[in-house]
């Protein structure tokens, strides 16, 4: 689960990492109270999960009250559906650093990534100037040692008091990384201010969903998702991605669903939505089809090849979904795996024409989407 900047910064503060003075507001009316706290100039930061907020004009630097009110109103009214704005004191910046912690799956270690050019996207930097990226590997059992913090600081060219303050921030960031079961924790940029303070200018925190049972600090609410369908499917635990094509995918298995997505593109078709109802969700056919039907797709394509997700149970689910939801569009099925003979009998009894070959099923769906016979 990706958190908003203001939530990441809450976590930073809890762990003792300095952040600029700030207040979260949900309407222009609250701007006065916020600016009394931060003073001017200040920064209006739209709280959205998308990257590149600065380029999209969603972060505004303002000098006085009149400008703040005007720009704040613009942001709340913008196309991006801004619901919350973080009003933040503008800091006098001397330099900017990139700092993050993630995991290295090969070495089986935690990995600190740092760069003296803060503010840039690290993916871009990895391509354009990989030599500028500093990496320090941390043993997950021993944790971080002070020398490792100093290693990073010295490579960044820091000295004296700033080096000490940076090391302290890095140590605290590592504590937060572990305590929150983070996939990624990132400060980009980390400001070195004119007063030689080290302050988190931005914050990213992505918490591993598999750790929900011991984290569960943040409830999954609609604001974390781009569309209603993505939100509803997330609540169900059904992997779902929204597209705007003609064919709704209702498949099982991440790898197989991704492959069907590819095959549709090869055959000249387009995908309306990616949906997996395999694994633990194989009994959720009705819910899965409901999500598919919310799209303006022309056909639903079901492809499975399951083991524990028994083919006959999935076929029964499909038939039940058809009876309950009375879909207004054709359904192409290719259900294989454990008990597939029984599955095909169930589908035939319900008047469907079960297919056995994935590519044949994909071609059929693409042809229907193009106006062909069902």
């Amino acid at each position, binding site marked *: 689960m990706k958190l908003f900047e203001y939530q990441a910064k809450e976590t930073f503060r809890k762990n003792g990492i300095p952040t600029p003075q700030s207040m979260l507001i949900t309407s222009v009316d609250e701007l006065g109270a916020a600016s009394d706290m931060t003073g001017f100039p200040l920064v209006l930061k739209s709280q959205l999960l998308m990257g590149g907020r600065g380029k999209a004009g969603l972060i505004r630097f303002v000098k006085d009250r009149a400008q703040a009110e005007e720009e704040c109103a613009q942001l709340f009214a913008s196309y991006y559906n801004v619901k919350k704005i973080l009003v933040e004191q503008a800091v006098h910046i001397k330099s900017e650093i990139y700092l993050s912690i*993630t*995991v*290295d*799956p*090969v070495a*089986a*270690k*935690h990995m600190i*990534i740092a760069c003296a050019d803060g503010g840039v996207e*690290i*993916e871009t930097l*990895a*391509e354009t100037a990989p030599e500028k990226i500093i990496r320090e590997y941390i*043993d*997950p*059992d021993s944790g971080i040692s002070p020398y490792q913090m100093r290693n990073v600081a010295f490579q960044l060219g820091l000295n004296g008091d700033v080096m000490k303050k940076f090391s302290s921030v890095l140590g605290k960031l590592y504590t937060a990384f*572990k305590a929150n*079961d983070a*996939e*990624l924790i990132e400060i980009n940029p980390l400001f070195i201010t004119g007063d030689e303070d080290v302050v988190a200018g931005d914050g990213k925190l*992505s918490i*591993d969903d*598999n*750790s929900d*049972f*011991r984290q569960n600090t943040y409830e999954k609410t609609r604001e974390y998702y781009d569309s209603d369908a993505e939100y509803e499917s997330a609540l169900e635990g059904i992997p779902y*991605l929204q597209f705007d094509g003609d064919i709704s995918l209702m*498949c*099982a*298995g*991440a*790898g*197989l*669903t*991704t*492959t069907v*997505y*590819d*095959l549709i*593109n*090869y055959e000249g078709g387009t995908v309306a939505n*990616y949906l997996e109802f*395999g*694994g*633990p969700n194989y009994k959720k056919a009705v819910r899965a089809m409901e999500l598919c039907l919310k799209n303006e797709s022309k056909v639903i394509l079901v492809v*499975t*090849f*399951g*083991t*524990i*997700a028994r083919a006959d149970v999935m076929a029964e689910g499909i038939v039940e979904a058809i009876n309950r939801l009375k879909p207004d569009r054709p359904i192409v099925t290719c259900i*294989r*795996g*454990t008990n*597939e003979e029984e599955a095909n009998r169930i589908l035939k009894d319900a008047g469907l024409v079960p297919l056995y070959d*994935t*590519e044949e099923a994909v071609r059929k769906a693409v042809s229907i989407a193009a106006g062909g016979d069902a």
Partner: protein
Amino acid sequence: MSIFIDENTKVLVQGITGKEGRFWTDHMIGCGTNVVAGVTPGKEGQKVEGREVYHSVRRAVEQEDVEASMLFVPPRFTKDAVFEALDSGIKKIVTVADGIPLHDAIQIRKAALLEGALVIGGNTSGVISPGKAMMGFFPYWIERVYKPGRIGIMTRSGSLTNEVTAMVVKAGFGVTSLIGIGGDPVPGTRFAEMLPFYEADDETDAVVLIGELGGSMEEECAQMKRDGLFTKPLVAFLGGRTAPEGKRMGHAGAIVSGGKGSVKDKIEAIESVGGKVAERPRFVGDYLKELLGQ
């Protein structure tokens, strides 16, 4: 020969008295696996399929000769169960748990590396040497998929493995051993770490990789081939060729890759060392024939 497991490998089942453990232990025995005992804390004295159940792995290995452990343990207890098996000196461990916390997975892999053990999974169907034995849950009864033969298969997927392997069999081949590395971002064992076993196996003629976008495991295999540590024909099928950038499609693996791991990069890496990458599942068999000169 087989990779990782054959009909002689002495297998312990951790979590044997659970619903899943019981069901799949029955099937593992049914397809030839030499299950010697089981473990469930608090259930010592019971029997499952005629095998003794012990309180702990330590108590089990005192009584039985054990070479490998199969875990039917929920994700949140998997780290503990893996550590318990490693502590008793078991060097081959398979965990099928789907949902192991990332930070646990890092510690599991680190412990495995330290002990010189192979931990396969999580988020996998396991390991199978068709006709001999399996650890995990494969629909081994589907003959058009799980047919014995001379092709090694490694995979990050479940359903897609059935899809692609069915095509390998349709082309007239069969499988020596299939290793489900699993779909997690930090698998206990990586593709490249299994290649030396296939290289050394006289009964494996070629290896098929079933991969997808994200991570660097396919690139690591290409590096093994470049370094001459793997010399047999290599054919890959990779899902996600047309996946749009920025969408989290497929397994969770992509998140930690930091900009690397596009299918395009993987294809270049594999083809640059003489491997083949099939655009569609059914082409895998054609490439195997081509590379094996059949």
